[in-house]
């Protein structure tokens, strides 16, 4: 029996060492990014540096490039050192960025004109509105990208879905960040908040999509599981987009008001942690169930 085991190694174990692990790298990147962006925000809040507009924009663009560079370094390059790399990461990121540029942003800004009516609504209406507009657009586009680029041909393990979804989030938010810096010309510290917000929104949305794909593809789950996850993705976009503005905007009084970047930062960190925790829990659960099913089948 033992020899048989050696002759026929556990395919799961073999695959495990062939694929680049996803979660730890994802978590590490988020920690590094959050720390760097927090540093910039604190710099802005407490030292209030007066930067030349050109320098500010250059720093903002450099900061916007950070998630992409970090992702290339920590998630893409290592792929080429493992036996079975995920070859379509850059493609997914690039196509996601292009869809954001060609469809996502124009649809939200020009067609839905969310900036004209949504900010003036109540919090609940804003959540609903952003969910059904920006959330639906973003989730739909990112799902479509994953569907046509990696689903199912590039899905070998659950981690693939997470890795590609992360790539989609990096690409999509990367373009959104550049557009934001170009359109709003934010100060460096405010840019850091908005960059984190975009990344959080896209990452949360992508992770839910990935979870849906994992469940649907690897567990052959009930057909509603994937759409529910995509819905959750859209909802997460609506929720974070609607709340981050409210958290950022301080209450008005006779003393005036100021923006509250630290409040917004805390909200975004909480959103990242909660999303990661929720998705990881469901992901692990799904994986555990399958491993248990596989083990029972194997034994």
């Amino acid at each position, binding site marked *: 029996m033992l020899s048989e085991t050696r002759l026929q190694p556990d*395919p*799961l174990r073999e*695959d*495990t060492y*062939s*694929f680049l*692990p*996803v*979660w*730890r790298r994802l978590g590490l990147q988020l920690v590094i990014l959050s720390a760097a962006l927090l540093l910039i925000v604190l710099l802005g809040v407490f030292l209030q540096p007066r930067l030349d507009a050109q320098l500010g924009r250059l720093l903002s663009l450099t900061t916007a490039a950070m998630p992409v560079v970090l992702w290339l370094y920590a998630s893409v390059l290592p792929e080429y050192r493992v036996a079975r790399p995920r070859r379509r990461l850059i493609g997914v990121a690039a196509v996601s960025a292009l869809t954001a540029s060609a469809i996502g942003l124009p649809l939200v800004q020009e067609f*839905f*004109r*969310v900036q*004209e*009516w*949504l900010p*003036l*609504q109540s919090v609940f*209406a804003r959540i*609903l*509105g952003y*969910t*059904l*507009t920006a*959330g*639906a*657009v973003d*989730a*739909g586009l990112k*799902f479509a990208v994953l*569907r046509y680029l990696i689903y*199912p*041909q*590039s*899905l*070998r*393990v*659950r*981690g693939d879905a997470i890795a590609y979804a992360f790539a989609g989030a990096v690409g999509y938010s990367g373009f959104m960040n550049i557009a934001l810096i170009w359109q709003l010309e934010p100060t460096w510290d405010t840019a850091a908040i908005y960059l984190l917000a975009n990344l959080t929104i896209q990452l949360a949305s992508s992770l839910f999509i990935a979870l*849906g794909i994992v469940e*649907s*593809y*690897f567990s*052959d*789950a*009930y*057909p*509603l*599981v*994937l*759409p529910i996850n*995509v*819905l959750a993705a*859209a909802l997460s976009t609506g929720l974070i987009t609607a709340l981050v503005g409210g958290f950022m905007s301080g209450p008005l009084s006779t003393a005036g008001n100021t923006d509250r970047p630290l409040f917004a930062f805390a909200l975004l960190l909480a959103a990242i942690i909660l999303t990661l925790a929720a998705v990881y829990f469901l992901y692990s659960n799904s*994986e555990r169930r*399958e*491993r248990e099913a*596989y083990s029972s089948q194997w034994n």
Partner: protein
Amino acid sequence: MEFETGRSPAIQLTPRQRWAIAITYGLIVLGLALGVNLRDGSLNLASDYRNLEAGISAKYPARWLLEESGPFIFRVRDMAYRGFNTLIEVSAAPVGSDTTERNLLDQLTLQRSQVLIDYSVLGYEDYRLADGSAAISMSYSFVSRDSNPFLEGVSSIVYGLDILTIRRGQALIVAFRADAAIYLRELDTLRWFVQNLEF
């Protein structure tokens, strides 16, 4: 410690997976449709205006500021727009048996040229009201500037359109003004307003 399980790529999707994808697309389309509906509902949300004394009822965009004190019956302004606040103003003017619509429009031109910067009439056109009756419209432009002398007011080029009709011995003038940058888009609001105007 990260632990991953794997399986061979499936070439063919199961019916469940196909259904899942289809439902997902359907859900996205449904969501977008609801989004469009929500957008239209918000952008076209209307408030009602009734003035029994003047015999006028109208709908105007919600959250526009309603004003009734001034040389007009009522006026509504979009205070959220960052620039010249788009406005629609309804006023009445007495007419004599010899008064023509052009007389009234020329009178408006003379008055406005005294108070508006660079007021210039662009042209006259016939206008058909919602009930099919004829009216005349006059388009014009001027420069708007905040008059507070202690602030560095921003000048805006404003396009305007007056729709004038004479009924029951008085002229009803619907004046519409919007920032030149959004004038064409805002014309839809005017058309909608005129369609819902009863007098």
